[in-house]
């Protein structure tokens, strides 16, 4: 929602201001100038709570202008006869600035808290597996080499899981950071699928993944590293919820205006409510299930897709579950590539 309507908070504030103007105009004599001034602080507070100082300053300025224009004598002019009103205006800006500064801090803290929670929850599982297995290796000297190998494989798996989680958190942090915009460039999705599959090269189920890519696939203008993360998370999710021997397929097709990525895995159908909720941060369908991983993967998928102005949805199909992603192809590289030499 946030990404689809980037200025909705500003819009709400302006609607509020309009409403206040109507109310103040009708009840002007009953309210008195002081109360009207106080009511004009409402949209300022409303926008300031979002923590964006620039929007706050814009709304505050307009609120002050409306108040000055309509109520401060002489009305319908920008002149201010009584200079004490200048103080009122300054107070407007101070209130707006202070609230949005604080709101910004609280928001940052909330994000930090979410990260800390994820870290502690989702790093603990692989970490305890590594610790336990490593101490096993340290203690038992006379061990069956097959068991030893099993233990080492488990340590390796857990390490890779942790590595993937850290990668997810870093990419997620990068997307949250307004200062570091997406690194847009021309991406070859086939290449991106290849890089994503590399991450699973030691996974025994890796060979179950069928890949179908439109040979005429166009280049896509996006952040290649994030798109790799998107495919990795989709595959990771499919691998987690697919039993041995069952089918996983990744299909990318493309027409004039859309690129469609379909990730299918053979499994039991998912409940309708879960189909929507599973893109929410830290949501996992079955917490009791012994499936490693975190609820963060799909939510990052959604963030990545939205950051590329695309749509992501999940639905049940006769034999399993399908994740569908649609990207709009708004620009395309010049078709005629120069042949040199």
């Amino acid at each position, binding site marked *: 929602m946030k990404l689809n309507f980037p200025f909705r908070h500003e819009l709400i504030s302006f609607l509020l201001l309009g409403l206040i103007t109507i109310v103040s105009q009708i009840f002007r004599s009953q309210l008195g100038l002081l109360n009207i001034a106080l009511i004009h602080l409402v949209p300022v507070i409303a926008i300031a709570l979002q923590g964006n100082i620039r929007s706050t300053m814009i709304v505050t300025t307009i609120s002050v202008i409306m108040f000055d224009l309509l109520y401060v004598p002489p009305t319908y002019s920008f002149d201010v006869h009584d200079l004490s009103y200048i103080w009122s205006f300054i107070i407007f800006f101070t209130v707006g600035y202070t609230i949005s500064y604080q709101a910004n801090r609280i928001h940052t803290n909330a994000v930090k808290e979410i990260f800390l929670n994820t870290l502690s929850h989702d790093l603990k599982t692989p970490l305890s597996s590594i610790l336990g297995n490593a101490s096993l290796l340290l203690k038992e000297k006379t061990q069956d080499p097959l068991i030893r190998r099993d233990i080492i494989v488990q340590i390796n798996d857990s390490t890779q899981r942790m590595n993937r989680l850290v*990668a997810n958190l870093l990419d997620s942090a990068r997307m949250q950071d307004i200062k570091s915009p997406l690194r847009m460039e021309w991406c070859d999705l086939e*290449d991106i699928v290849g890089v994503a599959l590399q991450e699973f090269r030691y996974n025994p189920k890796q060979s179950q993944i069928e890949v179908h890519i439109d*040979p005429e696939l166009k280049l896509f203008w996006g952040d290649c590293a994030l798109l790799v993360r998107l495919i990795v998370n989709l595959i990771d999710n499919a691998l987690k919820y697919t039993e041995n021997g069952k089918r996983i397929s990744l299909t990318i097709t493309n027409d004039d205006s859309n690129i469609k990525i379909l990730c299918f895995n053979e499994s039991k159908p998912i409940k309708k409510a879960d189909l929507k909720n599973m893109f929410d941060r830290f949501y996992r369908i079955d917490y009791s299930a012994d499936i490693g991983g975190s609820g963060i993967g799909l939510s990052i998928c959604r963030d990545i897709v939205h950051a590329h102005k695309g749509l992501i949805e999940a639905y049940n199909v006769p034999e399993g579950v399908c994740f569908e992603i649609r990207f709009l192809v708004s620009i395309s590289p010049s078709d005629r*590539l*120069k042949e*040199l030499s």
Partner: protein
Amino acid sequence: MRVQELILIVEDDEAISKMVSISLHQQGFKTLIAADIQTAARIINTDSPDLIILDLGLPDGDGKGLIKKIRSELMLPIIVISARNDEKEVIASLDAGADDYVIKPFSIDELLARVRSAQRRFLGLQPSYNVILCNEIALDLEHHQVTLRNEVLKLTPTEFNLLKYFLLHRNQVLPYSRILKEVWGVGYQHEMQYLRTYINTLRKKIENDTARPAYIHTELGIGYRFTCEHSNLD
């Protein structure tokens, strides 16, 4: 020539420098560890190592400065270790003269492969052949012809030049801008869509499974690496 080659590990994290050092010892190398740039610079002067493994995040300054300093005086392979999400730093150090890189966390096999390939490149002159062999590919420089499993491939001139550049620089990381400059020419360094498109078509012609490429590997955010296990040049 020394019997045992000496590798200098410049890394402030003891856990990593220890692990790297142990693995290199097992492979028959001698190692020295420096935890900061100052110590590293001193060791380079006194012990003249044969190869340097350099972490970019050091407490006392920028590793790139050290790379430039080494490059201005000595010819020896440098492999940098970088943190994730730091592709810019990697490209900058490759431009400064580093030969290869690994990204933390890396597997020791990966690092050893880089060390070997960097060594090979520095060992001596490239033998000159008219035909470059790489696994199942044979590129005939004289007749401008490429065969894959003894079948002639139809390549456009740009595809041929791209493949030739890859084969001459096999197993090395090749930053995007360098490939574009060398294959397309100066002024094309930023035309990424050319490179992406040609890599895609070249893969379709030489790879068995384009989604699981065996030859052209993508180094995300940095460039490509053309892998050759068997070549007549090595």
